[in-house]
């Protein structure tokens, strides 16, 4: 007689390990969605969202304990839990008529949290703060020794700046939860600059390689308030120190990082539907060292419909990107996804698909991103 055993937490933990290794192992990358719009700046800001939140356009991020956006939401974690987010994206770039297709695999966030007392939950993890993975090929002609020489430059950067977070969320009453977090911003990029000449008989190819290490610290605070049993609001604030870039042990640059603040609202419209939205500001314009840095504002709106065990999600987002010549670059996105609990609710798989359209002066980017997330509660 065939017997069916009920899965326990070990299956979920094993799956988490497998997915984590699969994501980190081949690529060794902890990066978010990169963009050509981040090349001439500090990078492309990461999205501090789990797959669940990102499938709703980011609208549920302030209320999702596994999105590293707010700390107060950790107070809702009742058991030791962990979540990992990963994704692969296909990007098409149209730069003044020059089109190219790019592809990247990303592992943008991981959160692990658990209660230490009945009211206090400690959590941590990492997420992508700025992505600095790009490569550009530049064809040019330079005048050398009185003769025009065709040259090809290839400048590459591979890596990201990650945000390591240690946070505490506490419920101060039945309606109010607060949270604070300490952030260590760290990471590195492997960079190379290569110039080759069409005249290979006389000119040698030159290649410079190095590794840039980044470091900064930050702090965050947030609160979450239940206005009614169905209506919840949240607000958050974050500030960071200057971002230091070191090459070979020497500091080569220091740049301000923005203050980040925002607010969100979530409405539970019955047992099988929730709506949420949020707005975020970041004063990237304060980065004095970058000529074309802009303050950014973004908003998102999304819904989660269906049973908590297998919900359907969708959302829309719009916002601005911090670095770009002339007008502030914009970003518009649509997303949707599914979630599925397994192992008796000890684990959950989330999948999502996102379409982003970015526009800057003379440049358009279209991005399809497939996301996969796993959450376990051993």
């Amino acid at each position, binding site marked *: 007689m065939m017997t*069916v055993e009920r899965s326990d937490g070990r299956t979920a933990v094993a*799956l988490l390990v*497998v*997915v984590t290794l*699969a994501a980190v192992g*081949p*690529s060794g990358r902890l990066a978010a969605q990169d963009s*050509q*719009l981040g*090349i*001439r*700046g*500090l990078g492309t800001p990461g999205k501090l969202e789990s797959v669940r939140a990102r499938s709703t356009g980011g609208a549920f991020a302030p209320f999702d304990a596994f999105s590293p956006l707010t700390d107060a939401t950790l107070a809702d974690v009742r058991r030791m839990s962990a979540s990992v987010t*990963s994704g*692969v994206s296909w990007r098409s*770039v149209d*730069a003044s008529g*020059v089109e190219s*297709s*790019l*592809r*990247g*695999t990303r592992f943008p966030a991981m959160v692990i949290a658990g209660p230490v007392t009945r009211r206090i939950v400690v959590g941590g993890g990492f997420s992508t703060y700025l992505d600095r993975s*790009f*490569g*550009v*090929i*530049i*064809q040019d002609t330079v005048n*050398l*020794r009185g003769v025009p020489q065709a040259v090809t*430059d290839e*400048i590459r950067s*591979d890596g990201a700046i990650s945000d390591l977070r240690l946070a505490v969320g506490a419920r101060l009453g039945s309606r109010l939860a607060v949270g604070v977090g300490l952030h260590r911003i760290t990471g590195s990029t492997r*960079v190379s*600059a290569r*110039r080759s*000449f069409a005249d290979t008989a*006389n*000119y*040698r*190819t*030159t*290649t*410079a390689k*190095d590794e*840039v290490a980044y470091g900064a610290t930050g702090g965050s605070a947030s609160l979450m308030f239940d206005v009614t049993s169905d209506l919840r609001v949240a607000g958050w604030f974050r500030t960071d120190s200057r971002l230091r870039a*070191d*090459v070979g042990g020497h500091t*080569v*640059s220091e*740049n301000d990082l923005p203050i980040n603040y925002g607010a969100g609202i979530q409405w539970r419209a019955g047992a099988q539907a929730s709506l949420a939205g949020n707005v975020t500001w970041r004063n990237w314009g304060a980065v004095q*060292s970058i000529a074309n840095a802009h303050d950014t504002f973004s908003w998102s709106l999304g819904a989660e419909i269906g049973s908590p065990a297998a919900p359907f999600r969708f959302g829309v987002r719009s916002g601005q990107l911090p670095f*770009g010549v002339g007008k502030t670059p914009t970003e518009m996105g649509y997303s949707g996804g599914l979630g*599925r609990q397994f192992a008796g609710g000890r684990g959950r*798989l989330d*999948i999502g698909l996102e379409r982003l359209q970015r526009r*800057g002066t*003379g440049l358009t980017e279209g991005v399809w991103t497939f996301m*996969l997330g796993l959450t376990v509660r051993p």
Partner: protein
Amino acid sequence: MTRRLGFLIFLVAAGGAIWACTEEATAPGSCPNYCPTDSIAIRDTIFTAIIERDTSFRGYVPSYGAEAMTAADLPGVIDSRAFFTTDTMFRRKAPNVGDTTTVPIFVDSSRVRFVIVRRPKSTTNLRLHLYRLPATTDTTSTFSSLDPAFTAAPVDSLNITDLLALPALTDTQTVRQWDSAWGVSASDSIRVDAAGNVLQFNHLDSTITLYFKLDSLQGTLSDADTGRIAWGVRVAADSLASIGIGTNATIANTPVMRWFYHYTIPDTVSATPDSVVYAAATLGTRFHNFVFTPPAAPVDSNLAVGGVPSARALLRVAMPAFLHDSIDVVRATLILVPVNAVQGVASDSFKIVAHHISTDLGAKSPLDPSDALIGTVFVHIGSPDTVRLEITNLVRQFALDSTLTTAFVLGQVPEAASYPEVRFYSSRAAAFRPGLHVTYVKRFRFGAP
């Protein structure tokens, strides 16, 4: 449960497959708006005082150690004559293996072979004259001491231009048989003049092999010299008479003499007549050399390269610190200003090699065995133009390895095979001193936004 498990496996497999995809993050840059702030900056500088303590030395390779001999007759420029001596040839021979008695040999004829490794293609009426020299010629022989022999009547002459104009004998069997008899590399044709002199054209390297045919009066064995013979060669032409003759430094091109003789084996045990045996003996080069006038001028304050005996110039490079630290050299050219245009014929143009030295011991500095750290350039006869010698690999290595000896030697290739010599202004001549034209890329400013 089974469906759930299948769903999970599907998702994990899909995820793994996607993660296994390769990255592609490089796109054509849309500059300057969407390119890195810094760019690869290239600089071009002529370092006029970077070459210092440069000097010349003569005497590395003598003319009798060269891989070629020059025969030239350029009035007002050079008169060069080549010669070689053969190995010993005995007049008696043991008729059979193991015999203790010997019989005399009788020379029927002989051939003298030369390989022309360099010749002017546009010369007309190019002739070679063969002279018999004293068998005692050696390293002490000079142009003047050999002049009486070289100004006597030639033993034989042949006209290379006329031979080349003759119809070629391309019969495979004949060509192969000739090649086999002389042990030479495959040639594609043979030409024979009325006197029996032969010309072979080697299609592999465009060399010409000449075989003088001498009768028994022209090629006579000298018992006093134990059969050694010295042959000298002069060249003549309507103009541009200058050729290079191979020596035993390259085995295939060495001058050779071949004796054709007969001897009789006496029959002492039967009534049959004595038998006559026809044979040949090939003799290699015992010594070779060439003499010329006017002789090479002694080295002076300029940088002499080439000539006979060969001269080399040693140049030391004072590398600025910034060339070591913060740049990447993409091209480096040594600039040398000749004192005068080199005289001669176009085919005497020669190659100069800049060769790194392992350690600086002045004239006796050993050359670096690495073939990578060299640069080459051709010096053209009659051209007073500035010589530009590409030494990019050398300077790149200087920049990368601060322990390397930053010096190199300029030498002619092949050395001492011909009379031309070039002289460049040294660092003593402030206006024309050697310079180094360096194109380099500055270190990219990584880490900046």
